[in-house]
């Protein structure tokens, strides 16, 4: 099996997951306050209390990390496709791929650490 099929299949799958998670994110951010969806502390969905309430839930922490992962993969793979269509020399194409993998993993690590830290802080009541 060529890597092209594998990467493209995951690219499409990430797009579908992204659609669902972004939909959820938009719903919570823009409608959560008015209908009290995942926002039990008042009408402001992005208030500190509501944010901490969501951060304390493990499912939200996981969804943030998942959103970050699929967003990075989908976006960076798309960027790689565009760059490789500039008909780069093979060595340069490999360097571009390596650079994007490093950037992606770095951002994923940083974002995941932040999401998990927010979760643990929220669990102890914002005193971390």
């Amino acid at each position: 099996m060529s890597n092209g099929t594998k990467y493209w299949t995951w690219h499409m799958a990430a797009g579908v997951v992204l659609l669902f998670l972004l939909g959820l994110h938009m719903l919570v951010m823009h409608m959560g306050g008015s209908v009290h969806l995942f926002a039990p502390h008042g009408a402001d969905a992005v208030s500190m209390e509501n944010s901490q309430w969501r951060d304390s839930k493990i499912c939200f922490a996981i969804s943030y990390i998942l959103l970050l992962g699929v967003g990075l993969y989908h976006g960076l793979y798309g960027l790689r496709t565009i760059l490789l269509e500039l008909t780069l020399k093979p060595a340069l194409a490999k360097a571009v791929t390596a650079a994007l993998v490093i950037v992606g993993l770095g951002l994923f690590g940083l974002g995941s650490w932040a999401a998990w830290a927010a979760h643990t802080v929220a669990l102890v009541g914002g005193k971390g």
Partner: protein
Amino acid sequence: MGGTHRGAGGREGIAMTQTKATRQIHFHVTRYNPEKDPKPYVQSYKVEVSEGMTVLDGLHWIKENLDPTLVWRYSCRMGICGSCGMLINGSPTLACNTQILHLSQSAITVGPLPNFEIIRDLVPDLLSMFEKHETVKPHIIRDEAELVDRRGEFYQSPEELEAYLQFTYCIKCGCCMGACPTLATDVRYLGPMPLTALERYNEDSRDEGFALRKGMAGGDGGAFSCHYAGECSRVCPKGVDPGKAIQLLKRKLVLDYLHLANKKKPCKKLEGPGQGKLLPNMTAPARTIPE
């Protein structure tokens, strides 16, 4: 050209005459001789056009009456051979299939197919397309012994034929390749014609070559490089839908990767409708024309 036609009645004095109205159309033709010209340029000709004349007829008229140095490629003059693919009024199509007055009442532009090197004037170098075509193994792949054995035939139902029939209408004219915006920027991309040929054999129930072709189909320059602009399907003079072939190919590759593909066995060799016995060895029919 144009004007009066003499009928083929054969009897003296009864010759029928028919006068066709003519109109002057400006042909703006791309000219290029790589041995002399630094780059292609446009030369204009006034052509006497009557109803029913094709762009190919117009080019012949120019060659016979105005400029014998004009070069283009053609053969059958009836949309079968695919030799006269050109960029006519900005759209890749067959010159023999395109009537001048259907395009314009005043001027048309004629150029060589884009995305190919120019050999001269309106003649593109189609070698790159045929080299890519060859790499996708565009032929039935099966057990060699089965293919060599002359007895019997591969049974294929009408539904199985329908699955790939339209892709067999491709005449390799290169119009889809000339229209493809992906190919314009990425020369490594196989292009619509080779990928359609690849899918045509993948869909053929007699074929067992998917495993051999999928590396090429899913690799760099394969089906996933297609951006689905759809121009290939729009311009195809034979009504083939290469865009659809490429999407079907993508689906097949993804399902295969996910192990969700329908594992269809290739059709069996039968010796007659509904029969399971081998036919006797076939011999050549006796000569019907006396020596």
